[in-house]
């Protein structure tokens, strides 16, 4: 279990490095697909089947959107040059990331160990079967206890679709 998890997360890290360092934008996007589908398998291993279903659908849609955008524009990434400013950016970035990692490690020491969760927070939701009658607790939380959250999510999705249509429309544009 632990070995499978570590192997999958290392695969995700390798995919992320390839996605960011590749000169071809199409292969960078396919490498992003490695991360998303590995995340799907991790959700299945961590017994979250609802998340795995949603993640595989959303990942496919994301890849379609990105590939359509790249095929409509250009595949080559010609923005990489090395000069003194880039080196300074590298050094400051590495220092910042080291500090971030240190503080994250300090913060994780106050969390319970992996797999030893006490369920203090969610005990009320675990009793939700008696209150809602929904046998799937995740859908009980989404659609019943936190229904307004889901309404807000639908609003955000509608707003982003309206934004995409507004930005990409052809009619009524001056230039």
């Amino acid at each position: 279990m632990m070995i499978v998890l570590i192997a999958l997360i290392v695969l995700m890290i390798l995919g992320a490095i390839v996605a960011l360092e590749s000169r071809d934008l199409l292969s960078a996007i396919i490498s992003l697909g490695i991360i998303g589908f590995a995340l799907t398998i991790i959700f299945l291993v961590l017994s979250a089947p609802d998340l795995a279903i949603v993640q595989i659908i959303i990942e496919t849609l994301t890849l379609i959107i990105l590939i359509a955008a790249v095929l409509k524009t250009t595949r080559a990434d010609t923005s990489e040059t090395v000069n003194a400013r880039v080196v300074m950016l590298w050094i400051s970035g590495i220092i910042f990331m080291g500090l971030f990692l240190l503080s994250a490690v300090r913060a994780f020491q106050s969390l319970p160990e992996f797999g030893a969760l006490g369920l203090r927070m969610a005990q009320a939701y675990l009793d939700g079967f008696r209150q809602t009658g929904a046998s799937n607790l995740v859908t009980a939380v989404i659609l019943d206890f936190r229904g307004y959250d889901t309404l807000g999510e639908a609003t955000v999705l509608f707003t982003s679709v309206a934004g995409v249509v507004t930005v990409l429309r052809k009619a009524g544009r001056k230039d």
Partner: protein
Amino acid sequence: MTVFILSVILFLIGLYGVLVKRNLIKIALGFMIMEYAINLLFVLIGYRAGGTAPIFTQDVSGQIFVDPLPQALVLTAIVIGLGTTALLVSFAVRIYQKYESFDIRKIRELRG
């Protein structure tokens, strides 16, 4: 603890992409990598050893469930991630149509 640190390293790789890369599509990919890492960290924190999926079946005696609350929050976050990604990529495509480049150094004169 190891898996937590590995997912933070994944987050930092995404942050590197956002901070250092000059290509707009690469910056969008960095944002998406950060989003994956955060979702992964939430579900990892909500896991219980030996827990099954939080779905009641006929035989519920002695079942241990994983925490359903982080899963519900991450479900919302994944769907919102699709919306933000679509908006980000459409902005990038529009900028490419105007400036013929994804390079953020060539996009100087930003006006309406």
